[in-house]
């Protein structure tokens, strides 16, 4: 019987001593943390993607709290949470936040297997950086998507993937948080953060080829040849051609899509627009493609 008593006493004594030590230490070495820090961090998405430019959400929360104390949180923005989250954070800190439009990553290359024929075979480490160091890659285009998926491994949200049919990267708009990790990962800088646009409607040049027209066309059927037709057509001055490559400024573009129609190589993409009404609308229901099966 006595050994049970001894065990209880010994363990109890150890517990007591440990409790006292813990209590004393927690009082003596307590760290006073700004309570707002935890609250702000709780509002942030917690993905620690680094898209804001700080090391993780804790870093941004720290910067936000410090900024609020200093009187301004301008320039601090969580691209993942977007305006909604920043609004909540601003409310919490009693600050006003500049409204920022939602952005999305856009892959500016349409060099599918059909459009951009393979001219050689790559037999090395299958990462974009290694392939980029080796030369133009498997196609003759030295600017387009290499399709090895460095952006895919950089994305924490599973929002970008290599389409096995086209061999180029595609963005899942629903999942994309515009954190910009893919933009940094791409050795050819073909991914850009652009305004998501109303109902996701965007117009952009889906090509990065800066070669002269004939060379670009030889490498890829849908390359931008820098002809400048889009620049002339644009009523808003949103398009600039520099170094044989056209670029649409998304802040000026009003989505009129005139450039799309004049582009001789179909290098300008307009996405998420309703399909144009066919001239002979077979069914007359306005379904767009005449395949709905409803008789006129």
């Amino acid at each position, binding site marked *: 019987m006595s050994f049970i008593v001894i065990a209880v006493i010994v363990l109890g004594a150890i517990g007591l001593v440990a409790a006292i030590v813990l209590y004393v230490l927690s009082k003596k070495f307590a760290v006073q943390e700004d309570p707002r820090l935890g609250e702000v961090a709780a509002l942030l998405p917690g993905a620690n993607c680094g898209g804001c430019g700080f090391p993780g959400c804790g870093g941004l929360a720290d910067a936000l709290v410090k900024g609020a104390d200093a009187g301004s949180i301008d320039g601090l923005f969580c691209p993942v949470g977007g305006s909604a989250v920043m609004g909540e954070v601003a409310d919490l800190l009693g600050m006003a936040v500049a409204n920022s439009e939602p952005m999305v990553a856009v892959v500016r290359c349409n060099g599918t297997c059909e459009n951009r024929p393979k*001219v050689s075979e790559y*037999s090395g480490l299958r990462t974009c950086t290694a392939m980029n160091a*080796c*030369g133009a890659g498997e196609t003759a285009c030295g600017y387009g998507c290499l399709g090895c998926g460095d952006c895919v491994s950089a994305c924490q949200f599973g929002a970008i993937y290599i389409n096995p049919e086209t061999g180029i990267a595609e963005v899942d708009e629903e999942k994309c948080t515009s954190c910009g990790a893919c933009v940094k990962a791409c050795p050819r800088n073909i991914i850009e953060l652009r305004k998501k646009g109303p109902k996701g409607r965007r117009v952009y040049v889906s090509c990065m080829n800066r070669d002269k027209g004939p060379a670009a066309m030889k490498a890829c059927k849908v390359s931008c040849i820098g002809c400048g037709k889009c620049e002339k057509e644009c009523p808003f001055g949103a398009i600039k051609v520099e170094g044989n490559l056209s670029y649409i400024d998304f802040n000026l573009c009003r989505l009129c899509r005139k450039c799309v129609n004049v582009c001789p190589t179909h290098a300008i993409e307009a996405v998420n627009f309703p399909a144009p009404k066919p001239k002979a609308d077979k069914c007359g229901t306005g379904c767009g493609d005449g395949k709905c099966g409803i008789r006129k």
Partner: protein
Amino acid sequence: MGKLIVSLSPHAHGTDTVERNMYGVIAAMLPALLVSFFYFGLGSVVVCATSVLACVFFEWAINKYMLKNPVTTVCDGSAILTGLLLGFNLPSNLPVWIILIGALIAIGVGKMTFGGLGCNIFNPALVGRCFLLVSFPAQMTSWPKSGQLTSYLDAETGATPLSVMKEAIKTGDASLLDRLPDSLQLLLGNNAMGGAGTIGEVCALALLVGLAFMLWKKIITWHIPVSIIATVFVISAAMHFANPVYADPFAVVLSGGLMLGAIFMATDYVTSPMCAKGQIVYGVAIGVLTIVIRNWGAYPEGMSFAILIMNAFTPLINTYIKPKRFGEVVKK
């Protein structure tokens, strides 16, 4: 004309492959295996065959059904090698069911839990052996005498040279050491005294032939085996001359699993350090630990534990001991 192939340099590759290395080590183990058939007969055949087949099976099954890997590491010989090494580390009268447990632990716990070939921290065969040693101490330390070619579980057992040395140290009676076979007998493995030891360690000469073969084929470098054997030899010589109750250095080096461990277990690629300097540090440390465990530990043999302990230090050695860089300025 076909397509042009592009890649970064180099565009040439040597003839070396993983398979060549693995099967090279297996080939180097063949002399010891054949000698063990000569000494232990049926028991050795059953134990080694069971161990190899079980290891290959577990490797295949775990890859296929648990990890859902495309099965790539079954044919490269690494599982066969682990199986053979495990078999070498067992007594020849061990029941099949214990061997199966050992193989499962070696492959399943020792290798696959860490991520398979190239990722394990500890030598899988030794993980299996040490698991069996602490789980089934009775079966794992009964050593059949050599020459019983047709017996398996029923083999007659006896004390090994190492247990005699341990006895001498414990009792402080140096005359016990007179029972030890002489060095030539230990080298060839035909010791008439008693239990011969595990399957693989019985004949030091056959193991040395394997070492010579691996050095010739450039499968391993000399650093690890030589540093282990030299360390053990030097320390045991010093101890022997200081106090004759410790056995003479030739007997220490030639008996037990020291040769097997130094040549085949400690030189395992995955679990040994990467640079020559580190390999020497690793070898010396294994030698010291082996002596310590043999002379003052609970077990008569310390090689397996010494290697496993140093396996754990390998990442540390790799971090702190670097090869000499080209053009490095030596600080005076």
